């Protein structure tokens, strides 16, 4: 019996020590804004009420980077709005707060999260990070009359028929088009594609890229698919790319496989051309294994929503400086898109003169409104997707440097 209690104690301590390590890293930035917003709401309490925005995203699990960054971006925006006197509806000022739910990147959990938010009386929701999860909750948003802005759900079909669903990012078909345009402009003639036919994001991008490439007259010399987005072996695919003579390979994958597997294996297979990805490639620098030859990351490019260096408007440069001050790191596109979702809600609430779901939806559906946001100035098209530009970002490595650098190369647009 003693042994049993001892072992339980041991597991308990192990678990606690694990979370202590994890929490120390995460809680430091997360706890701060929470405390600050709490102070802000306390200070504002006599003036007026608060409006709670629901926030759903993968806060734990393999896609946790997305959720936590959307959260920190959104919390920064809320803090700034509250410091400037809150959201003015009529002649009353309201403070903003968030209620955060973790969906672990699973659609059932995501559905439970939005139901819990709705039953708490929240009618403005930001979420979720991935297209798969977001597709599971769009019908709830519509049937319950809750506004939903997804910061990074890029799948085309999310916003087409849904009245209450909007987004602050561009959609996949547009991203694919931008990538094809880049390949054409730079004069690449032999294009290869390595993608995952089993994934909405990857397959959607591949379809858009192929369609645009066809229109622009690019020749696709080889196309290979892998079994899953978590695949760890890409050597066969890239051997085929090399033997087909591809100069540029389009690789719509996420950062978690780009750093450790895809890029090094592509180079090992003898592919020396350009690897062109989409927004999922952002953050690859965080997944490069120690001791890796960093020169392999030269010529890894991707289409992105946003780049700090190309931030020109007041809103975006303010966002970059305040974010860096607050969290001690440069923001990535999830921070910017989460930040934008809050700004869009603020503008819509003030325009509607109400925080009610239906009223805000009507304000958001007005395609003439121009939103001045961190990721650029945009207005919504009739489906609720922003009309904006993209940015081409690339990794490069100089001999002797200790890490790869990420630089924005140029602004991409279809026109």
């Amino acid at each position, binding site marked *: 019996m003693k042994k049993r209690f001892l072992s339980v104690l041991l597991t308990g301590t192990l678990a606690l020590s694990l979370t202590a390590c*994890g929490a120390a890293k995460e809680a430091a930035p997360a706890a701060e804004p929470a405390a600050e917003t709490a102070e802000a709401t306390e200070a504002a309490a006599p003036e007026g009420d608060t409006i709670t925005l629901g926030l759903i995203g993968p806060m734990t699990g393999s896609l946790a980077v997305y959720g936590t960054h959307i959260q920190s971006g959104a919390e920064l925006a809320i803090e700034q709005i509250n410091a400037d006197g809150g959201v003015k509806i009529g002649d009353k000022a309201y403070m903003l707060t968030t209620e955060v739910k973790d969906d672990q990147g699973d*659609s059932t959990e995501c559905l439970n999260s939005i139901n819990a938010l709705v039953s708490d009386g929240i009618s403005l929701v930001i979420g979720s990070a991935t297209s798969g999860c977001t*597709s*599971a909750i769009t*019908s709830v948003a519509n*049937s319950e009359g809750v506004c939903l802005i997804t910061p990074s759900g890029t799948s085309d079909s999310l916003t087409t028929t849904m009245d209450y669903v909007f987004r602050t990012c561009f959609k996949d078909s547009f991203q694919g088009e931008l990538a094809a345009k880049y390949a054409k402009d730079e004069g690449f003639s032999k294009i290869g594609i390595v993608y995952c036919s*089993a994934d909405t994001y990857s397959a*959607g991008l591949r379809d858009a890229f192929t369609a645009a490439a066809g229109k622009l007259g690019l020749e696709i010399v080889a196309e290979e698919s892998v079994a899953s987005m978590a695949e760890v072996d890409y050597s066969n695919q890239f051997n085929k790319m090399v033997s087909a003579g591809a100069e540029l390979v389009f690789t719509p994958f996420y950062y978690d496989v780009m750093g450790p597997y895809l890029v090094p294996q592509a180079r090992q297979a003898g592919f020396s051309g350009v690897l062109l990805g989409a927004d999922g490639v952002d953050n690859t620098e965080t997944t490069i294994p120690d001791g890796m030859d960093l020169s392999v990351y030269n010529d890894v490019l991707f289409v992105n929503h946003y780049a700090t260096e190309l931030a020109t408007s007041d809103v975006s440069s303010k966002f970059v400086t305040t974010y860096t001050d607050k969290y001690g790191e440069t923001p990535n596109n999830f921070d910017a898109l989460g930040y934008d979702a809050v700004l869009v809600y603020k503008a819509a609430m003030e325009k509607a003169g109400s925080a009610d779901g239906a009223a805000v939806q009507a304000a958001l559906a007005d395609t003439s409104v121009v939103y001045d946001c961190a990721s650029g100035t945009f207005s919504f098209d009739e489906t609720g997707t922003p009309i904006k530009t993209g940015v081409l970002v690339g990794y490069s490595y100089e001999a002797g440097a200790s890490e790869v650098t990420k630089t924005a190369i140029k602004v991409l647009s279809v026109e």
Partner: protein
Amino acid sequence: MKKENTAFRYLINLVAIIILMVVFVVLSFHSNNTLKLKVAPAVWQCCYLIIMAASLNLVLGYLGQLSLGHCGFMAVGAYTSALISLALQRAGFYTEKNSIQFAITLIISIVAAAVVAALIGVIVGIPALRLKGDYLAIITLGFGMIIVNLINNIPFCGQQGLAEGAASSALYANGLGFTNDEKQSFMWVGVLIVVLCMTTMVMFVRSKFGRVIRAIRDNEIATSATGNDISYYKILTFVFSAFFAGIAGALYSCANVSLATTSFAFTNGSILNSVFIVVTVVVGGMGSMTGSVIAAIGMFLLNYTIKNGSWVNALPEFLKNVFTYPMLVYSIALVIVILFRPKGIMGDKELSLFDIPGYPKRIASYFKNKKAAKEV
């Protein structure tokens, strides 16, 4: 005396089931926001988790074979029912979910899901069940992954479904997918299906087939020596189990408006995956149907309340950190159950309504015996 007692027990159980059904039918027609947003989705999720755990228990607990690809059958069921219902919807067979046509669609979808999953069960079972132990586990593991990848690459299983879809991990359109309102008004249907499935499974286990498969678990050679065709019984159980996993899949597509193959993977972030179903069965007790039900509901409630309950916020700070990583909590719970109750919550006994009054006494005597054993 024994005979009368049995009849009386059946009667009491029947009454209990009727009361349960009446409660859910009443709840289904009762309009309330909490019911609609929290209880109804939770009941639906419990429904498919219970059937999954109980059907795996047939193979794992009663037949004694480890199957790690059970969610593969569920995926087959889910996609079959979603696509059939979608086809009927597109063909204009039904437009509203409150119609007799939809009831027919629902029945067709569920039966088709079960039959297709059972057929796949035959195909997998015949070669797989020639193997034993670890090898069978590996084959079923492989099957689970193959199914997910197959579905990913079938051209009509993605996006908007049927001809309008591209092969992809997410099917956005689903004819069965209930909205919150429909989930509530059809809640009793889900419970009824669970009751029917559980009854069938319990009857199977108690039948002559059930006795043979338990004999196979306990001693394969002896069973074979008594003239039983071992392969036949193994495949029968495997197919029977796949059949119910298919039904669970159909319930899953009722509960979700979009399907993604990651939900049926070997492991993922949620509590619905092949490994977790095995864990549920082990926690509930291998060879106990009621144990599976208790464990499935318990695991669901643990998961659900960690995310959406208020009690986590009431915990001291250092404990709250553990609860931000739900997977850690499950593993601790599992370690505790295995340490203190290696056979699982119910062991291989069934929970009977008649035993409940005796439980306080039994627990008291359990601790007394422990104490006595220690003193000696």
